[in-house]
């Protein structure tokens, strides 16, 4: 396919997906928590734009609602909460030393390639754009997972978790023009509750191990040390 032949909406979606993917990469390599959170907020914003764009061009009103929800949750509420936590823990100064960062980045890139490879069989089922969008969202999911694997801070884990959600959401929007309303609402509700729970958990973890480093939480294991 060549991008000229596509209509404006498609071009927009494609560029959006490219940006979303980019943000994921930025997060993956990010050592400073505050910037991490900021990039996450940006990703949320991109999602909101994509959603409203889709809502506009497919005039599918219920997507507006999900756009609003996304904005409220992923751009405002969660970043704000995390930001507060980080300041409270005053971890905003220290940089997490990521082990062999380049390797992580490379594997991230290869994950992106892999997700294209995986979704190849779907090509003939639909237009190329779907493939791209799906591939991007899949890679966002995988990158989110990578983020959690490579970072040790609980905050980073939350961000990773939420960016996985983003990836799913993006897939839902671009590939299928949004899930049924009831499902959307349910998902949003879950995300909300999850966010709140994370807040509670930071409290507990801090009181119990007085840090948010998940590597310190390994009392329950099966290896005799």
């Amino acid at each position, binding site marked *: 396919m060549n991008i000229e032949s596509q209509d404006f909406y498609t071009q927009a979606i494609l560029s959006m997906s490219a940006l979303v993917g980019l943000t994921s990469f930025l997060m993956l390599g990010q050592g400073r928590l505050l910037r991490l959170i900021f990039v996450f907020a940006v990703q949320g914003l991109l999602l909101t734009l994509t959603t409203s764009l889709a809502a506009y061009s497919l005039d599918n009103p219920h997507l507006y609602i999900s756009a609003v929800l996304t904005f409220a949750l992923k751009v405002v509420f969660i970043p704000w909460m995390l930001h507060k936590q980080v300041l409270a823990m005053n971890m905003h100064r220290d940089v997490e030393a990521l082990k062999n960062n380049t390797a992580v980045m490379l594997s991230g890139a290869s994950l992106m390639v892999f997700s294209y490879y*995986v*979704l190849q*069989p*779907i090509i003939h*089922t*639909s237009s190329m754009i*779907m493939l791209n969008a*799906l591939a991007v*969202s*899949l890679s966002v*999911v995988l990158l989110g*997972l990578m983020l*959690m694997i490579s970072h040790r801070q*609980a905050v980073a*884990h939350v961000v990773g*978790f939420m960016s*996985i*959600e983003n*990836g*799913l959401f993006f*897939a*839902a929007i671009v*590939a*299928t*023009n949004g*899930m*049924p309303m*009831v*499902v959307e609402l*349910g*998902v949003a*509700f*879950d995300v909300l*509750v*999850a966010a709140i*729970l994370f807040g*509670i*958990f930071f409290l*507990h*973890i801090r009181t*119990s*191990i007085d840090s948010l480093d*998940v590597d310190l*939480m*390994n*009392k*329950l294991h*099966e290896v*005799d040390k």
Partner: protein
Amino acid sequence: MIAVYLLLLLSAAGIIFFALTGHKDDIGTLNTRINGVSLLITIWLAITVFNQGTILSGGKAFLIDSFNVYLIVLTAFVGFTTSLFSAPYMAHEKEIGKLTDKRLKLYYSMYQGFMLAMYLVLTTNNMGIMWVSMEGATLATVLLVSLYRTPESIEAAWKYFILCGVGIAQALFGTILLYYAASQIGDSGNALLWSVLHEHATQLNPDILEIAFVFLLIGYGTKIGLVPLHNWLPDAHSEGPTPMSAVLSGLLLNDALYAVVRNKMLVDGATQTHIAGYLMMGFGLVSFLVAALFLHRQKDIKRLFSYSSIEHMGLMTFAFGMGGALATFAALLHMTVHSLVKSAIFVTVGHAAQITGTQKMSQIRGLIKTQPKVGWGLLIGTVAIAGFPPFGVFTSEFLVLLATMHSYPWLTPLLLLGIGIAFAGLFRHIQPMVFGEKPEGQNAIKANLIPVMVHLGFALWLGLAIPSFLSDWFSQATQLISGSAL
């Protein structure tokens, strides 16, 4: 159909009500009552289904067929008996000051929340809602796992939350792919309704569904506790309050497996290959063997039995994956007896832990001498779960073995090996705990063992003679799932 709405509303109401009054003294009995009522409702539901056959609600939002109806009743039943046990248990925990009012409120309202999620998973016809409520179940129980606020419990809860969250997210991706595949054959309005999808299963795009199934299997498989995605399970089971462990082991795992099987039916319809089955068989077998080995290394009694849960879920996954009428029937039966027996065991384990004040098996001794009912309960329960007749577990394992022998003879030695290892792993720990002299200063406690007796009684009944209505349901479900009659 009203039954379903009543059921959901009741537990929803329960959430709010207990959130306010959860700290009252006799609240446990009230919780019991509510669960009792929902049990009655489900029985009513079961009877109607028994008379009318499959029910599809208006708007196709809910679907009750022979596959999920008995699971619904089972869920309500286990929920009820566990609440019977949890009342005195929680009271005792409050006495010894392990719990505050606030947490009791949380506990009781989340108990209902969990039940609500379970009912929703089972009754809904919408794969999306199924996902939502499955996630909801996690959210409801995650705070209960960390109820005691010990570092371990918080760690366990965190792992539970993150791992299940990530897993379930992958399931959502699978669901989206499903929806995507469905929306291509038009009718995107209710393209997530299982009934619709099942009708048009053959038209769905096999390639997409294969990929989708991978995500779904890993997603829900995390909840089932398939190795190597199982790591949250023993932690969560061992650190939370025992009634929670009982329902987690008895219900949550079952429902996750239920979700996987529902999806498998779609995928099989689409692909017409056995790929999904092979994946499930592989996962099941690995989980079965690995968990059996893990049993030997346990020091904590609740961890022990959570591993045995993994083992049995592995067996069921294997059986479902094998397909075929006999295997499916066996798997359905095994689902039932396993959740009956396992929750019964957790009840006795809870009492044992309260008697001795610890979960370390090295410090639990002489239960039979201390409190015969508890000791015998634990021993008989273990005998049952280890697959000794005349308990139902034996029947199902026997059938699984014969089915395997029939279709994949070379896998039977592995299964037998697993069963043998698992048995040894259980008994080498259980025996010293129940037998032997009573340690100094170890005294009996106020315990309610009716649930145990009832559960084991049912397991015994199922082992000796499966009642006709149940066997009818099983055979219909078998017909539905495996596409071939017995």
